[in-house]
């Protein structure tokens, strides 16, 4: 084959689905219909804790089908990690908006008007994750000798930091359609589920277990998806189960699409956190001991809390070198809707604490925030908290220095001192791919099929707005030596594609992209001098399937949390300037610069888009986004009252990409999707500290800033002092 094709990687090629999205031709789940389609509505608990006593349907039942847990042919669980969450509640209620039964009718209006009353025996709910009787998961990370580390310290700095819930707020709400009797084999008794989702094979597995069907009779097809941010990682498994049960009971296709209020009330959010730091440091700024204790609020069921906690704890010490580290984390149960995956997956919470704490350490030592980070930033050859020895692509110092230079940080800091404005920075990292042995266990597969012009990609990795199809096609095009336009991407349909794993954890480019690159390399070798057309004529169809291979030397011990937690890390540094309105306490970010080292930008425009979007979402997390919970229920579950940034709330952004290739990523690429949300919150809070406002909690709403300013001139105490300990 010729290699005349112009390189696609590194170029801003047209998005594969861009034309359809821009012209409105793209069809999302609620655009689809099927003959005989019925609609479903979920009847949910209105209490946070207790038992169901009686369910009563009031009025005319004509045309309605009711589906409850008795209709489940397999096991009544949403299969994920633990098996604690029922697909439909049987008796016990653990949170508001827990699904109890489904109403099915052909008329959406009648469905909406139907009146189902549920009688409960309520019990006392618990909303405090620190007082929970149920711990979903505990994690302990130990490095060196903590006592020795503190003994070597001149100063000990302590602090407690809190983060709140955050809603993913994808633009398209969750939705699925289940169609009976159209499984892969076309056999009766099967089910096909279409939907807006990140992880078709998660949904597939959950359906097999819920319905008690053989895998071949269950087919899951992702439809064009309007955003996910983690919010469509696990929840679609439950919804698909609901729609499938209804479809199997009625023998007709059933559509289940949430409106915005239901989506916000019922689906997962980012885990709130309480993180306490106790840090030993020498007078000249060297970290000698890091002691961290963290609690994540898991909500009512385990869902993904164990792995959110894991990623959170591995990132908890921040991108810093220290010989003596102790990290203790737990995720506990409360009577609120389960919290789950959200871009960053625990790391934004713990790195918020680490980075705000780092500025307080600098303040305590009289060092500037850049200097204390320069001294301690992880360098190639250093080891992380889990003992992972970092490779040459470790770029903490590089991103820090680039950001400081680009913004004239020190000069700006002096210039703004004493005004109602401040400048702050944050240094952060983010592991790409599943944690520890996760990728080995997952054993993701990807396939490449030869076509007359080039190749067709077969993966379950989903396009959810981030550019999966485009970026994977670029990687394949270059490795195969064909034009980008001659590589197409199969639908993420479990009937047609292998399980390349979930579209999460910043793994799609680095892990799945690399598997496809290997497929393409082998295909190119097989083709030799033949064109695809010639090969197909001579030898018939050619499909290459490859599985994930662990890079040589990568070791992880899950029992002691030691080793190579991730194949590689991306590195980032954010600098933000804020202005505080002295009359209204409103915090306005006025300038934002971020430096991201991501190995290789396969598609620079998409990479910058991910970074800008993630940063805006991070600024929202820092300043605006406040889930108001009352009696276990989200009280502001509307777009009017759950406040995310508009373009007027978002400052001009300067995004700087750096590339230190990771040897085992496609063209050297690492993950980029999640990291941008790690940095903005601590950078904003550090800028507020510079402006004279000592916050330890996000979001920095005007109401919270106002209370901080009232103690600003007196003693600096946290907003919610704890009883037994004085956190300085």
């Amino acid at each position, binding site marked *: 084959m010729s290699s005349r094709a112009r390189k696609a990687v590194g170029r801003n090629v047209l998005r594969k689905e861009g034309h359809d999205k821009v012209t409105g031709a793209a069809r999302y789940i609620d655009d689809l219909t099927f003959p005989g389609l019925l609609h479903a509505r979920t009847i949910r608990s209105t209490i946070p804790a207790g038992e169901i006593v009686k369910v009563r349907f009031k009025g005319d039942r004509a045309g309605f089908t009711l589906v409850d847990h008795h209709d489940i042919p397999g096991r009544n669980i949403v299969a994920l990690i633990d098996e604690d969450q029922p697909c439909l509640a049987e008796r016990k209620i653990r949170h508001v908006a827990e699904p109890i039964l489904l109403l099915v009718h052909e008329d959406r209006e009648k469905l909406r008007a139907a009146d189902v009353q549920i009688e409960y025996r309520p019990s006392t709910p618990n909303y405090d994750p620190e007082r929970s009787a149920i711990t979903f998961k505990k994690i302990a990370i130990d490095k060196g000798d903590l006592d020795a580390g503190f003994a070597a310290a001149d100063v000990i700095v302590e602090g407690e930091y809190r983060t709140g819930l955050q809603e993913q707020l994808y633009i398209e709400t969750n939705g699925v359609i289940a169609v009976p009797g159209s499984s892969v084999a076309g056999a009766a008794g099967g089910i096909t589920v279409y939907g807006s989702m990140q992880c078709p094979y998660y949904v597939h597995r959950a359906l097999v277990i819920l319905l008690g069907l053989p895998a071949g009779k269950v087919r899951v097809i992702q439809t064009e998806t309007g955003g996910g941010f983690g919010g469509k990682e696990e929840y679609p498994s439950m919804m698909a189960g609901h729609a499938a049960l209804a479809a199997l009971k009625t023998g007709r296709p059933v559509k289940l699409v949430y409106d915005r209020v239901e989506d916000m009330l019922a689906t997962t959010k980012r885990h709130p956190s309480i993180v306490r730091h106790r840090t030993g440091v020498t007078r000249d700024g060297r970290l000698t001991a890091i002691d961290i204790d963290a609690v994540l609020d898991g909500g009512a069921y385990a869902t993904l809390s164990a792995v959110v906690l894991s990623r959170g704890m591995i990132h908890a010490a921040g991108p810093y070198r220290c010989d003596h580290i102790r990290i203790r984390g737990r995720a506990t149960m409360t009577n609120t809707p389960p919290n789950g995956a959200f871009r960053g997956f625990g790391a934004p919470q713990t790195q918020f604490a680490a980075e705000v704490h780092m500025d307080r350490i600098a303040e305590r030592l009289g060092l500037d925030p850049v200097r204390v980070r320069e001294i301690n930033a992880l360098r190639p050859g250093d080891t992380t908290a889990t003992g992972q020895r970092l490779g040459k692509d470790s770029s903490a110092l590089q991103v820090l220095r680039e950001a400081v230079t680009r913004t004239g940080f020190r000069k700006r800091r002096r210039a703004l001192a004493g005004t109602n404005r401040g400048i702050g920075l944050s240094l952060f990292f983010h592991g790409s791919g599943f944690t520890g042995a996760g990728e080995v266990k997952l054993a993701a597969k990807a396939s490449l099929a030869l076509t007359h012009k080039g190749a067709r990609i077969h993966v379950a990795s989903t396009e959810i707005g981030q550019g999966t199809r485009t970026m994977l096609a670029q990687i394949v095009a270059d490795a195969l030596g064909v034009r980008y336009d001659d590589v197409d991407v199969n639908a993420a349909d479990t009937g047609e594609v292998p399980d390349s794993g979930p579209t999460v954890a910043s793994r799609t480019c680095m892990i799945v992209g690399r598997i496809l690159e290997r497929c393409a390399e082998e295909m190119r070798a097989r083709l030799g001098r033949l064109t695809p057309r010639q090969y197909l004529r001579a030898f018939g169809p050619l499909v290459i399937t490859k599985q994930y291979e662990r890079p040589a030397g990568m070791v992880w011990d899950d029992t002691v949390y030691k080793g190579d937690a991730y194949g590689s890390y991306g590195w980032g540094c954010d600098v933000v300037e804020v202005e505080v309105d*002295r009359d209204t306490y409103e915090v306005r970010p006025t300038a934002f610069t971020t430096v991201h080292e991501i190995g290789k930008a396969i598609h620079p425009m998409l990479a910058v888009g991910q970074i800008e979007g993630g940063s805006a979402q991070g600024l929202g997390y820092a300043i605006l986004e406040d889930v108001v919970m009352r009696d276990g229920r989200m009280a502001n579950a*509307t777009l009017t009252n759950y*406040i995310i940034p508009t373009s*007027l709330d978002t400052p001009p952004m300067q995004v700087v990409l750096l590339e230190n290739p990771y040897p085992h990523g496609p063209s050297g690429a690492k993950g980029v999707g999640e990291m941008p949300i790690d940095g903005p919150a601590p950078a904003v809070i550090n800028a507020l500290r510079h402006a004279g406002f000592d916050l330890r909690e996000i979001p920095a709403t*005007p109401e919270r800033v106002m209370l901080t300013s009232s103690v600003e001139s007196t003693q600096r105490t946290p907003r919610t002092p704890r009883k037994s300990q004085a956190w300085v």
Partner: protein
Amino acid sequence: MLRDEGPLVPMAGCTDLYVALNFGTLTETRFLDLWRLDALRTIAIREGALSIGALATHTDLIRSPLVRRRLPMLAAAASEIGGVQIQNRGTLGGNVANASPAGDTLPVLAAADATVVLRGAGATRRVPFSSFYTGYRRTVRRPDELIVSFEIAPIRGRQRFRKVGTRAAQAISKVVMAVIAGETPRIAVGSVAPTVVRARRTEAALAAGASVAEAQRLLLDEIAPIDDIRSTAEYRRRVTANLLARLLAPRSA
């Protein structure tokens, strides 16, 4: 029809109505669409007063040279309502009739001493804006009446407006204030009581030479804010006091 066939809900831009419909809180089922009554969209000077038709949209207000010259604080308020789509559909009459205490044009009309012109099958009556609201989301408009226009006499003094929303745009007010600073100050505040507050005692004290600090204290006695999902009573009180000082200041931001 309004009189004989039972209550009809007047609708124009529907920017509030559809919200209620979407939430399932809209109980009414009969509506009267006013949208095409262009005669109610006129902005003009009549007998020295600025007359604004009830169906003037927020965009109309922002673009009107008359409004910008005579009542710039109304143009300022209109430009902070919703986004462009809402501004193109939402009307001044609708904002007033909806009677939300957070309505952004309400403090402007209150401070401007506007007159609400109501027309029924029988007659037209003029109600001072300060007597238009009788309680939370309640007005003196009778079921067989429509708001047809607002009349605003010329204003002497510097007009100031500040909305404190939950974000920079597309936000509902947590505190919204209109002030006419001058020899006889006029002050109105929204989102701090069941209806928009016209702070007459504070105005009187200022006219009599009270200090800003004294005025702030008095103003806090005239409002009754609450904690809700958007903010806290304490925040609303402190910001109301701070804004008064800012808007009374000779050069205000």
